[in-house]
């Protein structure tokens, strides 16, 4: 027993005596790192159960604007993330800063069915009926009335979304009755600054509920819903002037770079980076999610 004890104690002592030999950069501590992170910017906006919730771009931190009404239906954040527009159903659109402090109330905007920020970060584009209006610097468009997009002879016309992109294109989503043989048609139209409009029928009973553009005005995403439970996501490529279905997420929003996109599906908010083919996400509630913007 004694030799075993002796050998074992010696082995134990020796094993604790060897010092680590540095092979790379050596010891490291965050507090000594000269590069320090910028203050986290809350860039991704959601409306969850009537509340505006802001997420850091890596989804690591959240901030709920509890100083705003608890029954918000829609909201949009500008591309510099310092202005937010929101609307309680049936009321005028309200502009606040990123802390929720009031900036302005958009007059006569209670009937607005869609609104989003232009790439200039100062102009809010609002759609009421088939007319576009602006809060902030007005945008030069050939026409702010989009009624001409509906096919001649169609009826039961509703326009759900319209936005103006950074390059002056207008993208609109609308639905109409095209007669007995075709029935209802749901369409997205890209109206470039010059040239012929590009139409794409996205379904028959589908209703496009949202459109979002990136800050460069190169990419627009749109989302349609069929029968309340089936969703389709559409990519409107302004350069190629194409409109294609890309996914089935209920909500999506283009990120600050062409490779980044935020998605919401099945109670999970996630960010996808196409260049790295990386996903990361956080859980939200399964229900009560009504808006996503980045």
């Amino acid at each position, binding site marked *: 027993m004694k030799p075993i004890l002796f050998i074992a*104690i010696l082995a134990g002592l020796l*094993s604790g005596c060897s010092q680590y030999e540095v092979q790379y950069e050596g010891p490291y501590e*965050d507090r000594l790192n000269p590069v320090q992170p910028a203050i986290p910017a809350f860039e991704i906006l959601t409306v969850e159960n009537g509340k505006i919730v802001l997420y850091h771009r890596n989804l690591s931190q959240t901030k709920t604007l509890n100083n705003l009404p608890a029954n918000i239906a829609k909201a949009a954040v500008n591309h510099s993330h310092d202005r937010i527009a929101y609307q309680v159903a049936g009321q005028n659109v309200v502009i606040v800063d990123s802390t929720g402090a009031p900036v302005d109330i958009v007059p006569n905007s209670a009937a607005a069915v869609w609104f989003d920020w232009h790439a200039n970060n100062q102009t809010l584009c609002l759609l009421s009926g088939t007319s576009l209006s602006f809060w902030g610097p007005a945008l030069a468009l050939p026409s702010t009335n989009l009624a001409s997009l509906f096919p001649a002879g169609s009826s039961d016309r509703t326009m759900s979304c319209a936005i103006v992109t950074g390059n002056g294109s207008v993208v609109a989503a609308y639905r109409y009755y095209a007669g007995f043989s075709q029935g209802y048609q749901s369409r997205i139209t890209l109206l470039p600054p010059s040239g012929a409009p590009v139409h794409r029928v996205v379904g028959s009973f589908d209703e496009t509920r949202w459109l979002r553009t990136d800050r460069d005005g190169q990419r627009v995403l749109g989302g349609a819903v069929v029968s309340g439970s089936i969703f389709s996501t559409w990519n409107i490529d302004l350069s190629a002037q194409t409109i294609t279905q890309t996914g089935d997420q209920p909500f999506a929003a283009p990120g600050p*770079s062409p490779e980044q996109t935020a998605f919401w599906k099945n109670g999970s908010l996630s960010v996808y980076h196409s260049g790295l083919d990386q996903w*990361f996400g956080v859980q939200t509630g399964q229900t009560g999610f009504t808006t996503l913007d980045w």
Partner: protein
Amino acid sequence: MFGLNICLSAQAPGYLGKRIFIKPDIAYAPALAHPTAGNRGGNTYGEQGTRLGLNTKYGLQAGYAFSRRGVLAAEANYMATGMSLTTYTPAVRYEGRMDEHYLFYNLRGPELGLALQTYNPLRGSLAPMGFFTAWRVRMAFLEGAVLDKRTTYFADDAVAGHLPLGIRPHYKHLTLGVEFGQHIILADRIVLSLSAEINASPLQLNLTPSYDDSEKDNQTIFKEAAAARMRFHSLIMFKMGAGYLF
């Protein structure tokens, strides 16, 4: 007369009436190819590695024989081991891109534990002497320190540096264990011990989900790596000590 003698022969707890012992001890665990406090083990890059390292732990144990069969023991230890992990931070000058950091951590700190040692008088043991089985709960309060780092910068942009890792290197590890060993008494006062422990961590069993590391935040990566390292580190330990009987 005879019958009376038989009735009074039951032995009192303790060795010759001495019930208390204090015993410094040393424990070591085979690390195999895993890291130790001073060696990264068989690691990703493999420039230096060991195939049979030992993790060492130093401790002090105090026990009281409350019956012929049982000893209640309290212990305090200091442990150290190594841990390798890979974390990521956003590249400073390339939006959406990541720098990768291979880190070698020292994971060290105190441990506190309570143990119930049981002895079987029918097999010649008498607390605190002879063969025993101990049941133990132990908590380790660990802190990590980066001893070595290897950063792979996106686009080789080392000039820009990298963002802080954002790791708070604190980790608590709870284990339940069973120990089999023997106490030998020398010169009426000296107690020598040799034992083997098996430890498991019941609260960490479901800690590691099957995500890619690049999808996790660095704090989660650190905690999961520490949990995994400690699970293996304390799984089997061999222990020896020499103490004093009171």
